[in-house]
């Protein structure tokens, strides 16, 4: 359990350090160190969980089980690699005068604040604290979206703030209803603890829980970016600094989905109907299809990939909605590979935008000729995210499709169609970007592509063969969520 406290304390120390320390040139490196130490702590935590099973802290305030521990490790990992990318990237932004040193300091403070909020969402056992931390994640990132202080970025941040704030208020109403249902069976002090509620799920009032889940799905769904609550997402992703887009896409969306799935586990235990699942399937499929269609008409490269995030989050929500072991396993795998691939893509997109000096798709051309690493990185990342074999996204999408054919065969054509549309939508934009003619005077930038190589390498590995311990890990999480073993 000590490891869990470390995971929370390290980013907290990071916030205090960056808030107090004077602006200095090596803040980026220190940010990397904080994230690296945190990754070690999460690995320690993971080893504990693998050896001893679910860990509940003494006062039941924190819970770490196979489901959330892999997300914790994933969060720490993406947080680390993104910080490695962000150090030279933000230094470059500072050099060309887009950012002042003071804002850089704000950026690093909030980076750690965001990481803390994410770890708290994942580790807490208290559904109320989960809400508080989720809102905290919005508050930490809202000033980062408007970091460049352009009118567009301020508009994006305002939209993000208002939409997510109002959206997530619905989740609090859902949590209050859940608490109300729980108060009727027991004492108040423990009634928001997930582990207690899960044990007593059969005693809870199913009608109240159904209503509560609707509110929670809408609330956290706003953060997942489910259509029609997704409006903030492309704006916030496109206007904020690129490392922020990478962590928002790779981590925040996952953790919001995690909150929904946790609550779904409670509702499923109570109602014995699949009402929560149907709602998630509906919202998920809608987001998946709308996200895929919107890919075609994007003019901004970061907006393009944020719609791709909406599409993939839709697919995961859909898969969790189907329930059953195969779909759950696929959704867990998809969460991992999507996080890794999408954050790698945003890293290359950040470099591409720095090379071209703009985010407009029609102005970014000839990447392979200008800087082959960036061009190939973007191309391979896009291949991976579009679900090309042998990458991990192919495996997980294939499993989702398989689960759909098994449980709801009439939905399978829609899923296939969506994958096809998304594929075409991505490639019509990316093909000229990487292969096109190089514009006059376009020069390479200083780029650190190790995060991309590591992420895409991992995604490839997951696509070719899932290592035994990871498969075991996913199976444990699947058993926890769906109640039966996969395959």
């Amino acid at each position, binding site marked *: 359990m000590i490891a869990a406290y470390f995971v929370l304390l390290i980013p907290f120390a990071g916030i205090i350090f960056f808030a107090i320390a004077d602006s200095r040139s090596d803040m980026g490196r220190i940010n990397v160190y904080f994230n690296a130490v945190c990754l070690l702590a999460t690995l320690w935590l993971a080893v504990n969980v693998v050896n001893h099973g679910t860990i509940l802290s003494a006062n039941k305030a924190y819970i770490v089980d196979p489901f959330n521990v892999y997300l914790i490790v994933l969060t720490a990992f993406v947080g680390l690699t993104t910080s490695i990318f962000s150090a030279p990237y933000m230094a470059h932004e500072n050099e060309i005068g887009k950012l002042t040193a003071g804002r850089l300091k704000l950026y690093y403070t909030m980076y750690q604040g965001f990481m803390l909020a994410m770890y708290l969402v994942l580790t807490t056992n208290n559904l109320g*604290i989960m809400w508080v931390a989720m809102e905290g994640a919005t508050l930490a990132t809202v000033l980062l979206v408007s970091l460049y202080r352009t009118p567009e970025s301020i508009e994006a941040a305002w*939209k993000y703030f208002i939409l997510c704030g109002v959206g997530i208020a619905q989740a609090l109403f859902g949590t209050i209803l859940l608490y109300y249902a729980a108060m009727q069976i027991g004492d108040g002090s423990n009634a928001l603890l997930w582990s207690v509620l899960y044990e007593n799920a059969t005693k809870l009032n199913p009608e109240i829980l159904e209503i509560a889940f609707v509110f929670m799905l809408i609330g956290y769904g706003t953060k997942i970016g489910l259509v029609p609550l997704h409006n903030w997402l492309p704006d916030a992703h496109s206007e904020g600094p690129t490392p922020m887009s990478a962590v928002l896409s790779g981590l925040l969306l996952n953790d919001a989905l995690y909150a929904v799935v946790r609550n779904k586990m409670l509702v499923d235990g109570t109602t014995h109907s699949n009402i929560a699942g149907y709602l998630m399937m509906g919202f998920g499929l809608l987001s998946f299809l709308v996200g895929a269609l919107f890919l075609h008409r994007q003019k901004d490269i970061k907006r393009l990939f944020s719609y791709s995030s909406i599409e993939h989050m839709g697919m995961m929500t859909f898969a969790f909605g189907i329930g059953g072991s195969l779909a759950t396993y696929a959704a867990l795998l998809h969460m991992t590979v999507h996080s890794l691939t999408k954050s790698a893509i945003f890293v290359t997109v950040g470099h591409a935008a720095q090379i071209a000096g703009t985010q407009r798709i029609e102005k970014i051309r000839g990447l392979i000729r200008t800087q082959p690493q960036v061009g190939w990185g973007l191309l391979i990342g896009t291949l991976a995210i579009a679900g090309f074999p042998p990458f991990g996204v192919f495996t997980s999408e294939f499993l989702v499709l398989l689960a759909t054919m098994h449980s709801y065969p009439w939905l399978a054509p829609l899923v296939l169609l969506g994958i096809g549309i998304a594929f075409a939508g991505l490639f019509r934009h990316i093909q000229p970007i990487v292969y096109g003619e190089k514009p006059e005077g376009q020069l390479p930038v200083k780029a650190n592509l190790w995060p991309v190589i590591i992420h895409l390498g991992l995604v490839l590995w997951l696509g070719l063969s899932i290592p035994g311990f990871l498969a075991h890990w996913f199976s444990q999480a699947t058993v926890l969520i769906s109640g039966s073993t996969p395959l």
Partner: protein
Amino acid sequence: MNIGQTDFYTQAILSLAALVGLTSFLMLGQSRLLRLIFVFALQGFLLTLTTSLAAYSLGNPHLYISAALTLLLKVIFIPWMLRREVLQMNIHRDIQTLKNKTMIMLGGASLMVFSYYVLHPIVQNTAPVMLNALAVSLSVVLLGMLLMISHRQAVAHVVGFMSIENGLFFAAIVATKGMPMVVELGIAFDVLVAAVLFGIFFLHIRSSIDSLDVDLLNRLNEIEK
């Protein structure tokens, strides 16, 4: 339900619920910003009253802390901040013409009916007073959203946002006798940070579009201009 048969606490809660609902409607129809902020502070004050009453009659001392937090945040700090902003921007004399005021009020009334309809299944298991309290809080939440949709000023958006928060808080106090202390402190912290962020945002919006009219925030769009 015969109102005469219920105890004093229940009766008081019901009246306060009605008043909180009323303030939401008052805000919805308000076209002057300063008055809007005043009504918002009034709603916060009603909430403080509710919380103190609950603390007193349920003998739950930690609710006094919530009441004090509400008083400080929702009655004093946030209205003060918004008022200062409005006076500084010199927009307090502007009268916003609300389009379709009648439609908005009718819409608000239907939202209230809708809240009762949504929460009706709950009444089977609990006292009718719960249904009233929860339905009023849900309608305060929904009316807050309607307020944000119908008003075009950033200040009105903040009021709507915070009034949604008020609705949730009312539900937490009345239906569940307050959330656990740690959660409540967390929520209060979030509200405080949100209020400070709003203050920062006003500054940014003002310096970038020289107005607090959110209709001018329309650059990001799927349609190319």
